[in-house]
Every structure is written in structure tokens, then in C-alpha cells.
């Protein structure tokens, strides 16, 4: 393994530790929202997408049905499809390897596959990051869930505010241009306005309509 490859693996491990660490907050928040340790670990193992997992838990915690949580999580999961589009030619995988790789498609593994000189390095970046994050995210989720179980009323620990801030933290890096900021503002205001008017879970899904309208209208 050459110098470049060693550097890729080192970076992948660093990304794994950093990303995995916030799995602790997911585990604690999920358990505080009423999920069992097993349910929250299942989310991290099977869904393996931070924003979708936080969204699922957030909707359920706010009183929405689990299925509306699922719908919100799936809508957020659509960005992994875009990543897959970019990764397809970078990785050049077929059959069973593509099926396995799919599970690991997340923000970080995609980023680590890009801007590489050749396919082998792209695959190395993708898989080493994906596997590192997968292992650490899941261990951290378990740890956070068990620790969360040991706490009392989640509100005493401000965990409900923590969930809202998790979403802000996930949103923040995406507010890069005027259209994104306008979309965020419109969706946030609309969702809050709808809370007293429609069943729980729907106000957030209305946000998806804002995204569709904003996306369809713009040409630039």
C-alpha cells in the first residue's frame, strides 16, 4: 500500500471516529423519544443515514405516527440516490459488490470517493470510510442508547432542544445560496403554521412540497 493509500485509510478512520461520535447523540435521543434500545440500534444498522434517522425519531417524538416518520426519513434519503449517481462511474461496481456498497452510501463515503486519481483509490476511499463510519456509528448508537436509558425525564436534560439543534446542525452547511435559505425559511414557517391545523407528521412533509416548488421554478 503506497503513501497515498495509507493517507486515504488514515483520513477514513478519522472521519469514522468523528461521524461515529455523533451516533452517541442519536442513540440517546432515540431512546429518549420512546424507542427501545433494539429499535434504535436497528435504525442505525439498517437505515444507516444520520439525517433520516434523526428525522424518523424527531417526527415520532413530536407525536407523529411512525409511518409519517418513515415517509420523512425516506424523503431525506433521496440525497443518497444522487450520491449513487455520482458514485456509479467512480466505483464501477456490479452485482453483489454493488449491493453491498449501496448500504454504505452516505455523505462521508461519497466525499471520500471523489477527487481521486484512479478507480482503485476511489474504491479505497469509499469502502474504508463507509466501513469505518458503519462500525463506529453503530457502536456509538448502542452506547448512547444504553446511556440514554439510564437517564430520567429527557426534558430535564434538554434532549428535546437537542433534537431541534441536531436538525439545525445538519441544515447549516446546506444553506449555501439564496434559494436554499429561502426554501429553508419558507418550509420552516409553513411547517410551524400547519402544526395546529393538520395531524402530526404532515407539517414536516409539507416542507417537501416547498422543495418541489422551489426546484421546479428555478432555472439557475
Amino acid at each position: 500500500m503506497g503513501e497515498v493509500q495509507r493517507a486515504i485509510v488514515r483520513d477514513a478512520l478519522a472521519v469514522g471516529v468523528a461521524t461515529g461520535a455523533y451516533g452517541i447523540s442519536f442513540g440517546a435521543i432515540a431512546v429518549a423519544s420512546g424507542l427501545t434500545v433494539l429499535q434504535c440500534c436497528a435504525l442505525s444498522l439498517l437505515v444507516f443515514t444520520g439525517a433520516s434517522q434523526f428525522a424518523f425519531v424527531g417526527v415520532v417524538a413530536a407525536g407523529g405516527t411512525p409511518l409519517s416518520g418513515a415517509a420523512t426519513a425516506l424523503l431525506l434519503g433521496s440525497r443518497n440516490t444522487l450520491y449513487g449517481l455520482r458514485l456509479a462511474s467512480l466505483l464501477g461496481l456490479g452485482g453483489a459488490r454493488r449491493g453491498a456498497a449501496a448500504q454504505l452510501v452516505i455523505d462521508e463515503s461519497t466525499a471520500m470517493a471523489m477527487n481521486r486519481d484512479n478507480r482503485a483509490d476511489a474504491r479505497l476511499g469509499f469502502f474504508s470510510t463507509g466501513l469505518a463510519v458503519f462500525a463506529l456509528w453503530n457502536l456509538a448508537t448502542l452506547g448512547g442508547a444504553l446511556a440514554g436509558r439510564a437517564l430520567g425525564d429527557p426534558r430535564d436534560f434538554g434532549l428535546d432542544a437537542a433534537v431541534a439543534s441536531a436538525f439545525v446542525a445538519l441544515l447549516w452547511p446546506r444553506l449555501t445560496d439564496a434559494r436554499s435559505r429561502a426554501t429553508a425559511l419558507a418550509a420552516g414557517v409553513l411547517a410551524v403554521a400547519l402544526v395546529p391545523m393538520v395531524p402530526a407528521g404532515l407539517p414536516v412533509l409539507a416542507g417537501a412540497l416547498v422543495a418541489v416548488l422551489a426546484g421546479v421554478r428555478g432555472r439557475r
Partner: protein
Amino acid sequence: MWAAILVTAAGCYLLKLAGLSVPRSVLGRPAVRRIADLLPVALLAALVGTQTFGSGEGLQVDARVVGLAAGVAALLLRASFIVVVGVAAVAAAGARLLAG
């Protein structure tokens, strides 16, 4: 709950696989890409709103706003994800203690 978890898991996996499998032309149209880019923005913003102000069937302003403000302050100071979440939790818990 389990049904929803499994639906989410299956759906998210298929979304990931679809991107790796479907030809560019189908999913690469500009409007589709713009919508896909804006979906997380809109949904996350909506979640911020409902998580901060929603209470059962209505709205309520409480310690969560304090937590959110603290979290935003941490973000402006370029804090990491876990610090932002922690600061928000501590601020909200503190506000509740002070309020009685």
C-alpha cells in the same frame, strides 16, 4: 413502530441502490437534481420548526427556544456537531431549572 422502521430501512437501501444502478439520464435532469438538493434543506428546516415549537396538537414557546438559540450560537462559532447538540441540551435544561 417496527413496521415503520423496516419500511424506512428497505426504502432507504433501495434509494441508495437506485442511484448506483439507474442510468444518469433518468435521474440527472436539472429539475430533479434541484429538487433532490432542496429536499433535505426544506425537510430539515421544517423539522427544526416543529421540534422547537410543536407541542401535541398546538404550538408552545418554551425552554426549547433557548436551547435552539444556544445551538445556533455554537454553530456560528463553528462548533462541531456534538458540541452544538450538547450546548443546546444544557441551555434548555438550564432554562428549565431557572424557570422553576
